[in-house]
């Protein structure tokens, strides 16, 4: 707890506020520390981009997921850095250089697998172009705030008390951007109990069934296809126009299931064994944007490894299989495949409810509702739900970065 308090104090000193995101992450001081350091570094540390640009990019990224909370916070920061007020009127007011980034923003947020070296080429060529390290910096900012939006929606973070609606009574218990989806009560509660889950994990770790590779491949594809069906019902649902949309263009562009994509085009599955964060991503990133790789590496590691050996009310549980299932499922949504993982486990460990929740949060975070939060992982503690949300944040960020870095490497060679 002391640890958390020190971190909170530091945050307050640096930002003049202790935002709700930080407060909630205070459940996991072990993670909060590298998270804050990374965020500070990319927003306030040394870097190729000017400070007003950084915050504007953050605004653009958060606006992509209509996360008004982050947009407002970042607008404040943007103005504090003496950013041009006119830019806040929308994308048409900003320099061409920033406007060029919108395409990248769109793709990274929703369909990172489309990202290829031609996008980089477009940015780095021509008048007042981007330098490669600027692109990297921008990409990290974009990815960070896309994923932070996921976290904000996933945990239903309320607006800060000084922001609009922060004081309003009826909103206090309701997450921002609440949409009236009341059918959630009708979904049958098929949530696995913790005990059942533990049993399954145990069997998985004990059994060494010799599944053939075809089966495994099938599993991966099945997983993707299944996930495609999960929330198809929402597909045509449109959200009301929000004022944050002026920082983005093409609002209808959104996540499409990777599986569906693969059938239609030439895009192949991303194999983690061929381009991994530890080996390739890190080296490239550190070369182009000093130290950023180190910060992110630490953050990813902690997010992946963090455990309290606890599940709900049970102690001394090895949660690694469960965590790995979540991590790999999220990356699977983005078409990233771990050769050495048996995707059957995902199906066994993650209930349909949880999977829907994860998918909504990663792909359409703006559609999340409070009942979504309440209905999943019922027997888990709040801190554990936050834990899962942190994993979503990081797994998704890694996925986005991997696609982006691979494109940059291809551009460089």
């Amino acid at each position, binding site marked *: 707890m002391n640890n958390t308090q020190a971190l909170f104090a530091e945050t307050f000193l640096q930002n003049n506020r202790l935002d709700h995101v930080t407060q909630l992450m205070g459940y996991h001081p072990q993670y909060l520390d590298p998270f804050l350091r990374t965020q500070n570094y990319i927003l306030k540390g040394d870097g190729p981009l000017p400070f007003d640009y950084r915050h504007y990019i953050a605004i653009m990224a958060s606006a992509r997921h209509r996360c008004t909370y982050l947009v407002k916070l970042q607008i404040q920061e943007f103005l504090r850095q003496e950013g041009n007020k006119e830019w806040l009127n929308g994308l048409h007011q900003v320099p061409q250089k920033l406007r060029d980034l919108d395409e990248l923003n769109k793709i990274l947020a929703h369909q990172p697998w489309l990202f290829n070296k031609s996008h980089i080429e477009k940015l780095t060529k021509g008048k007042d172009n981007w330098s490669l390290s600027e692109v990297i910096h921008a990409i990290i900012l974009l990815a960070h705030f896309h994923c932070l939006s996921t976290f904000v929606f996933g945990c239903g973070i309320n607006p800060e008390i000084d922001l609009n609606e922060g004081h309003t009574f009826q909103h206090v218990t309701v997450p921002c951007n609440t949409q009236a989806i009341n059918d959630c009560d009708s979904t049958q509660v098929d949530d696995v109990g913790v005990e059942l889950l533990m049993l399954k994990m145990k069997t998985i770790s004990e059994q060494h069934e010799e599944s053939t590779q075809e089966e495994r*491949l099938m599993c991966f594809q099945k997983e993707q296809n299944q996930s495609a069906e999960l929330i198809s019902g929402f597909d045509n649902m449109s959200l009301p126009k929000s004022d944050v949309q002026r920082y983005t263009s093409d609002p209808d562009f959104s996540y499409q299931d990777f599986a569906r994509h693969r059938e239609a085009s030439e895009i192949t599955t991303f194999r983690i*064994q061929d381009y991994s964060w*530890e080996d390739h991503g890190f*080296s490239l990133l550190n*070369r182009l944007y000093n130290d950023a790789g180190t910060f992110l590496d630490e953050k990813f590691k902690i997010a992946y490894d963090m455990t309290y050996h606890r599940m709900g009310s049970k102690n001394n549980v090895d949660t690694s299989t469960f965590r790995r299932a979540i991590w790999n499922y999220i990356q699977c949504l983005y078409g990233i495949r771990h*050769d050495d993982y048996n995707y059957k486990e995902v199906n066994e460990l993650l209930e349909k409810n949880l999977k829907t929740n994860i998918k909504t949060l990663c792909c359409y975070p703006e559609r999340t509702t409070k009942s979504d939060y309440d209905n999943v992982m019922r027997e888990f503690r709040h801190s554990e739900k936050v834990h899962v949300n942190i994993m979503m944040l990081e797994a998704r960020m890694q996925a986005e970065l991997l696609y982006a870095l691979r494109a940059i490497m291809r551009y460089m060679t």
Partner: protein
Amino acid sequence: MVSKSIICYLDGPANALAINRDSTQVVVAGRNVFKIFNIEEEEFVERLNLRVGKNLNLNFSCADVVWNPVEDNILATAATNGAVVTWNINKTSRSKQDMVFQDHKRSVNKVCFHTIEPHILLSGSQDGTMKCFDLRKKEASSTFYSLSESVRDVKFSPHHYFLFAAVQENGNVQIWDMRRTDRYEKQFTAHTGPVFTCDWHPEERRWLATGGRDKTIKIWDLSMKPMVEHCIQTIASVARIKWRPQQKFHIASCSLVIDFTINVWDIRRPFVPLAAFNEHKDVSTGFAWHHEPHIILSTSKDSTLYLHVFKDAIRPADHANPIGLDISCYGDISYAASNKIVRNGRSSFKGESYSSTKLPVFFRKHPSASDQFRSAVSSIFVFKNDGDKFLSMTWFIESARRYILSGRSFAELCEHNASVASDLQRPHVAQTWRILKLLYNAVPNLGAEHSWGVPSVGSISEMLKGIERDEAFDNSQEGSKSSRHNSGNTFKNRHQSGSKQSSRHVSGGTGNGVATTDRPDTSGATDNSTDSEESDNDKTITNIASGLGNTQGDFFFGDGETDQLMGFQCTLSQAPTIDSAQDWNLPGEAFQPRHPIKDCSPPPELDNAPSSPTSFDEDYIETKSMVGINGEVYDYTKLLMTPEVPSSPAWVFNDVIVDMLHYFAAQGDVQMCVSVLLVLGERFKGFVDETTQEQWFHSYIEILSCFQLWNVANKVISLSTISSISSLNQQSTTIHTLCGNCRRQMTRIGWFCDRCKIMPTQCSVCHQAVRGLYAWCQGCAHGGHLQHIQEWLQYHPWCPTGCGHLCEYT
């Protein structure tokens, strides 16, 4: 045998390659490619495609491949899905797949056969474990837990039957004994960030090479405590390394990203690769040495398989000329260059004052094997600086020694330093000192007293004749001059019109004019006084004027000899002199267009003023008298005014001094900057910002210590008013006493050892700790308070401890 480079195109990107025992076949493995080629004279001939069968699963997707070093028909691969697969190419069936071990939970990074036993296979996996497979029993015989996230490479030692090395993602290297599965023999942290690869030296038993993400290759000596023997900096993360056969110091490396070349390093030359093969168009993923050491095979993500021969390699060292140049602080130049550049081992220097007196030629030769670094023969030249020229620093040393920076009056300091400078033939610097003396010495005097010492005036003007006139100086002179005339004119006009308001204005103007002659700061006062006492100006003024006449003494008003007066004023005015004659003539032409009175309102130098409290009054009175003089006395006033025209200390020269200092700094003469700053001291405070000053001080002190002028440096430090500088010689000035018992420093208290809990400095007479002077006999080493010992020795010749020694104190 093979004598030229060969290329072969593959079906897909390859991840690894291995070569068989007698270097006749090579196997290339990747996600979509798995083939064996025969190495022929001029080409690769495909011998076998192992990626066959209807069931092409992930077991065929290889991350690593090895060839059994004993049995030539056995291969092993590490699959990305975590399987370890063996292949028997002598199998009669179409599929050569032999055994599949699904023991690892995560991807397998590396596999390795035992160097002697053909049936022992070791694997290192992403799940953090290593497994040892017995191919006879067809099962994993033992598992080693690395306690790290993942194992990136494993290698059996070629010298020791049971030992193997494993490198981890967390930067650790572990040495294991196969017989002990519970604990490693040795562990040490080798790199920051993951270690990707390791290789035992084939001959040197103690050497293990490791390469990691921190872009280094390190050679470890494992004989004792692991120590870095050599360290090579690469430009990208190191993916694989391999020692070159038959060449003790050569190692090849390829990188993971960015850099596509395969570099061969001589570990004794860690900065430039010995040879580089850069045919690949994408990252090289695997390579292997042929048993003939001039051949290397490599494969890459660009789907090619290459055979390189050494003579086709690029020698980066050939494109770098070994050359070195340095200049000593005395201006001597030494220069070393390869004889390729310096023809005939001789060199000449363009310039008169350098004599290339010494030419000790020295050679550095390598054993000239064909594939070694080219032997570089270099000559070294020393050019001694004997002419007093550009690079000579004698002036610096001399000035540093002889300059006096404090302890005398300002004028003396300046004069002394000026003479030092002119001794050294530096007229420019000497002149600067003199000007400084003039400027800063003159001003306070002028302001303080009217009774000028005539001799000093004389000397000043004398000195000034020699001074090249500064332009700024001239300008300000001009400016003040014209404004002075103006004031004279307006004065006249105003008095004719006689309006109240304008008279105030006039008085301001004249006030300035008058004030500036002696003391700029009175103008404000004049204004006020005129405001308030407008009505009864006449009377008071006359009174005062008369009084003034008395107080002012003889030469100013008394005689009324304007001619004399003017002459005096001319010399009095500190700066001008040469112009003064002209100035003096000018006032006749009364009507000049009015200039803005810029120069007339200088920042008052109040801090100089209080030296004589009366002066203020005097000025005050004087100016008033001017103001109050009415039309009738106008002529007189005019006369009174005009002589004062040239004397205009209103000129703010501090800015000029700042410019001057920056000029010297830009010339590299920080000595001058610092000396001037120190000599001026308080007079010139706050005009140069502190950080700049600090820089100057630091550089000067640094140069001084180059010349070992410690005393001067120390003086400069202690004279400095900047706290960060003046504290420089106050750091680490403590000398700790040692405890005689445990020989440790007594850091906390000087006379009590915290460790031994004793007081080592006990007085043998009173048995108390001695905190001040401690006197002891050098014969028996006993002693105590100086006073006590003295008292004791008055009565006793022997030691107070009773050791029997007849103590002697000198």
